[in-house]
């Protein structure tokens, strides 16, 4: 088994530009560092995140996937975030069938001004993924 202490998880974050992405941006501006394990991909809405995007992230080596969008009721595209959430819900069922721990995907709803909350969420997720260990998906030949 891998030595979790030396394992640095790779995390891909799909962040909605109106909310969570702005919060992450705010972290940077306010000098509130969040773990460098996280690579951010800006999307217009979490409803834009496709199964191909999530699964490709896993295939390319992501150990964890963070999806950050609007809180329910706040999506400017009228429920794009909820559609996205429904997709992730179903995709997690598929991941389970493939033996992948669905906890490797986490969804958060963080408003643009909540930089600190983003920092904390990012740190927690990174720690949780570190504890889970490397994703076994990448080692598929």
């Amino acid at each position, binding site marked *: 088994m891998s030595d979790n202490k030396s394992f640095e998880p790779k995390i891909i974050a799909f962040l909605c530009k109106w909310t969570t992405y702005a919060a992450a941006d705010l972290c940077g501006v306010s000098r509130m560092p969040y773990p460098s394990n996280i690579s951010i991909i800006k999307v217009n809405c979490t409803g834009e995140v496709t199964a191909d995007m999530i699964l490709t992230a896993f295939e390319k080596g992501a150990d964890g996937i963070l999806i950050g969008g609007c809180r329910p009721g706040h999506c400017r595209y009228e429920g794009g975030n909820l559609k996205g959430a*429904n997709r992730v819900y179903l995709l997690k069922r*598929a991941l389970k069938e*493939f*033996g992948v721990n669905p906890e490797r995907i986490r969804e958060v709803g963080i408003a643009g001004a909540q930089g600190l909350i983003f920092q904390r969420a990012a740190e927690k997720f990174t720690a949780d993924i570190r504890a889970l260990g490397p994703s076994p998906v990448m080692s*598929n030949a």
Partner: protein
Amino acid sequence: MPNNKTLAFYAGSGCGGCSQSLMLSPSLATMLDGADIAFWATRSGDLTEDEISQVDDKGIDVLMFAGPVDGEASVATAKLLRRKAKRVVAYGACAHLGGLCGLTNVIPGAKLRELAEKNGGFIRPLSAVIDVDYVLPGCPPPQGMVERMLKELFLSDDVPDVGTVFASSKGVCGECDRKHLNSPLEEIRRFHAAPPDPDICLLDQGYICLGPVTRGGCGAVCPEANRPCTGCAGPVAGVLDQGGAILQSLASLVPLSGDVSGEKEHRVLDSIQDIVGTAYKYSAASSLLKRRVNDGE
């Protein structure tokens, strides 16, 4: 019109449906007229490594490869065959996607995994082990698609571009005659008690149909027989993971309840049974996830 090409057919394992689909094609005689056949193997036992090695490298103009790559031996054979052929066609769902066999990559179960390990591995699509020039999808490829492939490969002076898939790049829905009602997905239905209304879109009626994410070219025969498309021709152009795509579409069709907990939506989504058999019936092995892994279980 004699075509003066050297061709070969190889089906190492598989159910035999692809060999039959080719044999039954009305254009077969025309294709074979003047063609040189390097070999026509319908079982792996039909052809030894020595016999394949005796063929000149690039000595075969078109090699049609059917059946799954299901272990070290077949990987080696595929690589050897690749050397001997100018162009390779992945013939049928097993070669294209891993096919129904691919479900064995995902299903937990001691006996089945034992068999998989014995065979030296797991099911892979042909393109995972060699460069594939063309794809003829289907389980087995329907007659129209076979005819199209024969015409473009053997009965024409032009050579199709590498990457050609002998099917539509768009979904089966384009060929399906059923009426669209754009109904939300409020209840998943199965083939119990009464079959669907044959005139209305299956998804509108709550039956899971993979038409939207599956390549057309088959004439939507399954919906015509009042059965759902099960995805045998693989994903439409631009989609990498066919199972993910249909799950994504189904999730998007569930109406938003306005309830923050999402309980109503979850109930609908939870009622989808046999997720892998439904979403990944033919494509489990070519999913981005490829096979079942051990994630701390």
